[in-house]
């Protein structure tokens, strides 16, 4: 078993527990042990863009220090930390870059963290679980599949922070293929659509819910028009802004057909034949199980 440091993020312990559960199960099947440090804190998403800001980098850098402590204690085998939430990925990665490239701010961050037992060296690499899978090789992922998702038309919804800004993304922002490659390995049919990278509305969901519902309508409708039966995502905020919000969308657009939105690891768990606790579909709104049963991909 390869042991990799793992950063869950707050939401994966609460509203997006299904994302974590499905990931841990699939990782085990693939021979990866995801090691969560005993101490970690909220990553403090979204990455702070002001050039003079030090305060908002303390939270992400503190987490990177925790990952380094794991490595020092011999509990993991590499300098990578694996993230699942696209926003945590983006925040940790970008703060890591600030720490490593801005010597002035690096010093200030360190000065502010004098209570920690050691200083962060900057030597942690932030990766997303999709990158881990790609690095392992899609054929290895395919080997673990016991029930290919034949006939399931899935639209990969990338969202924003997995691919942008340039230099931070896990794939080419103009023509990403990483999610399509995963779907292919799982035996599903990837459905491309124009709005796969259109922002879901992000944090505006707190105080501008109706606007976010309109965005959801555009994105989901577009995917349906291209023939998609389901969407996959890698971010709990995208899942929240595209999934449960559909009840709001239906109020304004009665003709709208609801379409399930799941985490990519849940489909992996399904294809790997890992059972109900791993697929964790009870946490999803709308419920993807009727569709999957119709397709013969889920037993009663």
């Amino acid at each position, binding site marked *: 078993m390869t042991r990799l440091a793992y950063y869950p993020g707050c939401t994966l312990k609460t509203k997006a527990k299904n994302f974590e559960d499905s990931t841990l199960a699939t990782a085990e099947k693939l021979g990866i042990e995801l090691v969560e440090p005993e*101490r970690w804190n909220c990553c403090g998403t979204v990455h702070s863009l002001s050039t003079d800001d030090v305060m908002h980098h303390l939270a992400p850098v503190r987490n990177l220090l925790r990952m380094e402590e794991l490595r020092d204690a011999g509990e993991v085998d590499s300098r990578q930390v694996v993230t699942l939430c696209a926003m945590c990925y983006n925040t940790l990665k970008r703060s890591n870059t600030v720490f490593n490239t801005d010597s002035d701010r690096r010093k200030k961050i360190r000065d*502010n963290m004098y209570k920690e037992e050691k200083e962060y060296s900057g030597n942690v690499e932030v990766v997303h679980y999709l990158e881990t899978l790609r690095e392992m090789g899609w054929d290895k992922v395919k080997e673990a599949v016991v029930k290919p998702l034949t006939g399931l038309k899935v639209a990969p919804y990338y969202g924003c922070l997995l691919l942008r800004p340039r230099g931070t993304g896990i794939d080419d922002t103009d023509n990403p293929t990483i999610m399509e490659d995963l779907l292919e390995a799982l035996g599903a049919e990837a459905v491309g659509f124009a709005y796969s990278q259109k922002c879901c509305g992000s944090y505006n969901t707190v105080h501008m819910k109706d606007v976010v519902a309109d965005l959801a309508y555009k994105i989901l409708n577009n995917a349906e028009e291209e023939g998609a039966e389901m969407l996959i995502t890698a971010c709990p905020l995208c899942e929240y802004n595209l999934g449960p919000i559909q009840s709001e969308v239906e109020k304004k657009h009665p003709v709208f057909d609801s379409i399930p939105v799941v985490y990519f690891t849940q489909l992996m768990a399904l294809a790997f034949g890992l059972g109900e606790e791993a697929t964790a579909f009870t946490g999803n709104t709308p419920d993807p199980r009727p569709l999957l049963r119709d397709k013969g991909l889920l037993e009663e």
Partner: protein
Amino acid sequence: MMENNAEYVTIYVMGKKHEVPGDLTIMKAMEYAGHQFTRGAGCRGGFCGACATIYRKKGSYKLEGALACQKIVEDGMYIAQIPFSPAEKTTYDLDELRPDANTMLEYYPELSRCLACNTCTKACPQDIMVMDYVQASLRGDIEQAAKLSFDCISCGLCAVRCPAEIVPYNVGQLARRLYAKYIDGPSQHVLDRVEEVEEGKYDEGITRMMKASKEELSELYNNREIDLK
């Protein structure tokens, strides 16, 4: 005035300079200097949180927090008391709450503003990992939050300094209440003992004690079992 053989040190209380014996606590030193406590003093034993104090040491930029009744003075200490920290405790009916993942966030949404800057931990006079229990509350880990905040005496120093305007001690209190009521459950040995009392198991012993003479009681007391572990 008692004789004191300790060396004298200089301290500043609310800006005024005083010479005080160097082995006194801040509280005793302030009283030595003539200050009379009408607020900001309580149990004098490090347990009630009334005497929250901030100070700076000579030549240091760091602002530190302490309990006046516990902290010994140092030369050049610049002291100010925080008699009261304004804090809004949300109202809730504990019987109606459940320890769900979002319960803490629902009653203290400002938890989402935590910057993990650790200022609260630095301010705490009880060496509590304040940032850690605030973070545990944010991600719904009520048990962790309750256990880490156990020693909190609600002195208010963390709340006064938090840049995100969180009141950690209120958060910890809710976590402990939820934990005790819903997660930890009642102490079985207490329930068992109450049952025994109600059944009258101790009635005879108590009656005997109440009727005993002073000599009998002295005898019992002097020969009682003492566990010196």
